[in-house]
């Protein structure tokens, strides 16, 4: 700790930080643009100037940039000094020279860092009366609007997009007063994290395009703390609603999970909630048409399904409460897992490993601390995108070490990057095809899945001799090198997942176990990814023997008469014939879901279920972190949380309480509920801001009498403007706002220090108890080799399309591809296939687009099922592809962004 004096007041600060960061940590207001809490300093904008004094006798002082000056012990600075203040106001005046002052029509207005800083710096009168420079804007795809005239050239966008997120298609162009930030030509921004530009840009150059079309000011949006349901990372989000529709999603800071950034699936993949295709009414099927169910009929249905002979199929995309309610209703032995049997097997392994003391499941922040990474067979960018962004930061630890050796502070971003050049911490990728993280990989091995499993075991054996041996002669040197890198690391990390079977998970576990045995290291970071928001939660509830296959067999064989399907399209989980025969045989099928699916079409009764923003719920992410997601808005029609349809619990807290005491592994779930007494002086926390406008008028077109505000009997939040402001308790704050700070950058006012935890904050509750110490998994027996025309199958995923619900969102649909099979040029030639051809795949005969990629392992076919009705469960290990006479499908694969797409020869 160091002591510094700021305007005569002594502060204890961290000398490893710069003055700007420390000023903000102390709650002081100092304007800045180019600095960002997770991107460090470059000193480009000159906005954070302060006066620094040599000693107490120095009355003159000199101007320094706070972001570029370390907070050394004994430093004396002034923010209020005249020359510093006038310098700051001059700087902003010059930055604002060409700014169009179009705040009234700008989407950023009202949550604009530039507005805040302009006011804070005291520039309130425009003197420049010459012509402003203007720019042409570019089309940047369905997510982002471009309005370059608003730019103040702080360079944050390219520092984020290129340096932080690894993008290659946004750059700073031209020089002096006509610097331009854009692509080399118009086109879709290719990074999976482009949406963060909306929040990174301090003004309105990059804005949310989907939001623009249905815009509302920040203060007019009803919002609540939510959790993204796009994948298993569980990023914290702040969705905003107005006039009954969900309008946008922005980041909500969680120091352990997503920090300041989301992926584009999470940010833009929500508008299925507003879709007309939503299920909004309870319906029964009568002669192939839907008929509305009356209340007493619903009661009768529930009663009928409560009888003996009913089984329930859970859902990895439904909340713990809904899964638990179903489990309670049908009984433990009749509750079945709602994912594919292959995934079930992987999940069984993952859940066993979760309680093993040898392993630690790292949070996203912890992943950034890894100094050697091995990714085994998982396409992280498309399965758990936010983790790919974290892995990009982990390889910079080498640069940080080099900087420390050279005594360069870590926040000196440009200097650290200049020093490190291409030096990175080792990250190795073992996969069946090239990936979007290859540019940061030190080593990569492209192999068929069985060969990857063997290589994983070989690495484990090379780390510790007690791990079972496997040989893959071809890659011995690579295995040796990767083993040495992991052994030499302070904090090695192994990443694998359930995407392609349990063997990869087991091989990854063996590597981590070998590392644990070999070194003196505490638990080894083992990050096992699962596909959906609550895969882990549902996995914990279903008994290991209760797989989906067993459930379907029970129905087909009439061992069970009725089935309740919870928020699940079974046709994505098992083969068509299997599901068909089960549902046809079942006497009665009850489906609860948000949207219509092939499964709901087969149901006798469909009950509509609320979407993520319409109910309070808990989910458990890949690391076992339980998180609470509040209800943002009321569902306009008759949808209810699934647990409410099928249980008689009155209150969500009761369901959670029961789940804690009855479901094994959930004991700590209750920790996510807001603690203490939430009702201060009998008041709740409002979901609407104190400036929420039009409340008395917004439904005047329907009724001029203002109705009573909707009551929320469930949570500690209210659908109202009145109450105890969330600013008092950041753990229930969705929309940060502080005096003088209207944008999301005001979050520093609520952190215990910059980049730290939120004050009184809640980062979730880790459910897994580490009790066991297991043993090595055996090396799987040699697999059968493909015969004839067969290719090894590797399932492939896409950030835009693989998630069932976000794939129904309009902006996401614009970025999706059709189902395709990726093969190398040689395999294509052998089958007479050309780029973009339509082919049929055996065994199902489904049509897919042929995608010839030079980076796919020869002999392996990547299968991306997309939103087409191809169930990955139809395939086991191998695939045959044959040219089809069918015409190319609507979307094709034009939107596919991969680095190894084979161009046609010209």
């Amino acid at each position, binding site marked *: 700790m160091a002591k510094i004096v700021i305007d005569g007041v002594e502060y204890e600060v961290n000398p490893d930080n710069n003055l700007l960061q420390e000023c903000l940590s102390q709650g002081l207001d100092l304007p800045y643009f180019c600095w960002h809490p997770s991107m460090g300093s470059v000193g480009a904008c000159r906005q954070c100037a302060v006066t620094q004094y040599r000693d107490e006798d120095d009355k003159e002082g000199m101007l320094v940039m706070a972001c570029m000056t370390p907070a050394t012990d004994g430093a004396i600075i002034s923010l209020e000094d005249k020359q510093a203040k006038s310098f700051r106001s001059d700087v902003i005046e010059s930055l604002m020279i060409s700014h169009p002052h179009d705040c009234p029509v700008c989407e950023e207005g009202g949550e604009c860092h530039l507005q805040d800083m302009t006011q804070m710096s005291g520039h309130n009168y425009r003197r420049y009366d010459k012509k402003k420079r203007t720019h042409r804007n570019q089309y940047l795809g369905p997510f982002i609007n471009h309005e370059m005239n608003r730019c103040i050239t702080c360079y944050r966008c390219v520092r984020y997009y290129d340096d932080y997120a690894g993008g*290659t*298609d*946004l*750059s*700073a*162009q*031209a*020089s002096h007063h006509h610097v*331009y930030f854009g*692509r*080399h*030509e118009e*086109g*879709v921004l*290719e990074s999976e994290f482009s949406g963060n530009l909306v929040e990174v840009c301090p003004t309105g150059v990059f804005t949310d395009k989907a939001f623009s079309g249905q815009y509302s000011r920040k203060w007019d949006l009803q919002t609540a703390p939510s959790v993204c349901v796009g994948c298993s990372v569980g990023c914290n989000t702040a969705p905003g609603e107005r006039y009954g529709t969900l309008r946008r999603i922005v980041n909500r800071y969680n120091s352990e999970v997503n920090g300041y950034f989301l992926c584009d699936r999470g940010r833009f993949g929500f508008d299925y909630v507003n879709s007309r295709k939503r299920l909004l009414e309870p319906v029964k099927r009568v002669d192939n048409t839907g008929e509305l169910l009356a209340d007493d009929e619903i009661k009768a249905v529930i009663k009928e399904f409560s009888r003996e002979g009913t089984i329930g199929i859970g859902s990895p995309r439904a909340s713990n409460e809904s899964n638990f309610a179903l489990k309670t209703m049908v009984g433990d032995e009749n509750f079945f897992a709602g994912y594919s049997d292959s995934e079930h097997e992987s999940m069984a392994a993952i859940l066993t490993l979760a309680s093993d003391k040898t392993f630690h499941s790292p949070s996203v922040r912890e992943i950034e601390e890894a100094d050697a990474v091995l990714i085994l067979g998982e396409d992280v960018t498309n399965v758990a995108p936010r983790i790919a962004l974290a892995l990009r930061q982990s390889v910079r630890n080498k640069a940080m070490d080099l900087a420390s050796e050279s005594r360069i502070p870590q926040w000196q971003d440009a200097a650290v990057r200049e020093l490190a*050049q*291409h030096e990175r911490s080792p990250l190795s990728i073992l996969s069946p095809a090239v990936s*979007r993280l*290859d*540019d*940061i*990989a*030190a080593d*990569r091995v492209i192999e068929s899945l069985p060969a990857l499993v063997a290589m994983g075991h070989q690495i484990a054996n090379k780390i510790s001799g007690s791990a079972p041996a496997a040989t893959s002669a071809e890659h011995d040197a690579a295995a040796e090198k990767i083993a040495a890198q992991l052994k030499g690391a302070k904090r090695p990390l192994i990443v694998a997942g359930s995407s392609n079977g349990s063997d990869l998970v087991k091989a990854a576990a063996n590597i981590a176990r070998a590392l644990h045995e070999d070194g003196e290291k505490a638990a080894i970071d083992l990050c096992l990814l699962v596909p959906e928001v609550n895969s882990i939660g549902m996995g914990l509830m279903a008994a290991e023997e209760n797989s989906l296959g067993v459930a379907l067999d029970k129905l087909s064989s009439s061992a069970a008469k009725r089935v309740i399907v919870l928020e699940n399209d079974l046709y994505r989980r098992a083969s068509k014939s299997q599901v068909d025969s089960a549902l046809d045989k079942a006497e009665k099928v009850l489906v609860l879901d948000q949207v219509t699916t092939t499964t709901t079409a087969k149901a006798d009764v469909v009950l509509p279920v609320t979407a993520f923003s319409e109910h309070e719920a808990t989910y458990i992410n890949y690391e076992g972190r339980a998180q609470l997601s509040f209800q943002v808005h009321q569902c306009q029609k008759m949808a209810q949380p699934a647990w409410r349809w099928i249980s008689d619990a009155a209150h969500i807290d009761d369901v959670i309480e029961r789940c804690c005491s009855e479901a094994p592994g959930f004991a700590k779930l209750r920790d996510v509920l807001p603690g203490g007494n939430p009702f201060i002086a009998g008041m709740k926390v409002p979901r609407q801001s104190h400036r929420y406008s039009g409340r008395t008028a917004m439904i005047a077109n329907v009724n001029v009498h203002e109705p009573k505000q909707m009551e929320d009997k469930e949570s500690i939040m209210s659908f109202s403007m009145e109450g105890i402001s969330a600013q008092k308790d950041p753990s229930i704050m969705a929309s940060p706002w502080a005096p003088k700070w209207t944008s999301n950058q005001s979050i520093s006012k609520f952190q215990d220090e910059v980049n730290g935890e939120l004050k009184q904050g809640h980062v979730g509750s880790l459910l897994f108890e580490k009790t066991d110490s297991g043993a090595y998994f055996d090396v799987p027996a040699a697999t059968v080799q493909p015969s004839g025309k067969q290719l090894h199958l590797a399932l492939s995923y896409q950030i835009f399309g693989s998630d069932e619900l976000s794939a129904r969102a309009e902006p996401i649909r614009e970025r999706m591809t059709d189902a395709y099979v990726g093969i190398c040029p040689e395999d294509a030639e052998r089958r007479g296939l050309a780029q973009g051809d339509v082919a049929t795949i055996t065994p199902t005969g489904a049509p897919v687009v042929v995608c010839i990629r030079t980076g796919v392992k020869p002999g392996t076919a990547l299968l991306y099922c997309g939103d087409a009705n191809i169930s990955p469960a139809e395939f086991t290990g191998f695939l045959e592809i044959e040219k089809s006479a069918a015409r190319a499908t609507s979307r094709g694969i*034009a939107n596919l*962004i*991969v*680095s190894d*797409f084979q*161009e046609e020869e*010209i």
Partner: protein
Amino acid sequence: MSQQVIASTATKARKLSAEEIAEIEHEMTLYPDKKAVGLEALKIVQKNQGWVSDESLFGIAEYLDIPVADLEGVATFFNLVYREPVGKNVILFCDSVSCWIMGCESIKGHIKQQLDIDYGQTSEDGDFTLIPVPCLGDCDRAPVMMVGPDMHRNLTPEKIDSIISDYKNKQD
């Protein structure tokens, strides 16, 4: 590891000529990494083609395996990397302080009249492009300008006429 140069671009790359490649290869031996060769490669292509077209830009990026966006950043940063076609002779006309004191305004007016072009324009016959520069470092002999690689000093309207006809004759 190679940079991720993505396939989804509308503009197609031009294949660099053998001479261009030979010169770029030579530059590659002088720099520690490919990104650094970008500027030299742009100069080489400009020398050979007269300017840097979109197709050439893509050609260089593809050859060096660096992102097009980065290379475009370099190309647009430098005023003398031409991203639009220029005439056979580029006149770099100094209009900075010393030349201004020495009456460059009237010289420029003369050029404008003779060639019927203003700053940033190319004469109809494609012979000359006029571009302003801030200083050519020859203030003691102001006003000055460059035509191609040649420096012309102590400019007068008469001198301009003879320079123009010299370059025209040279080409014929």
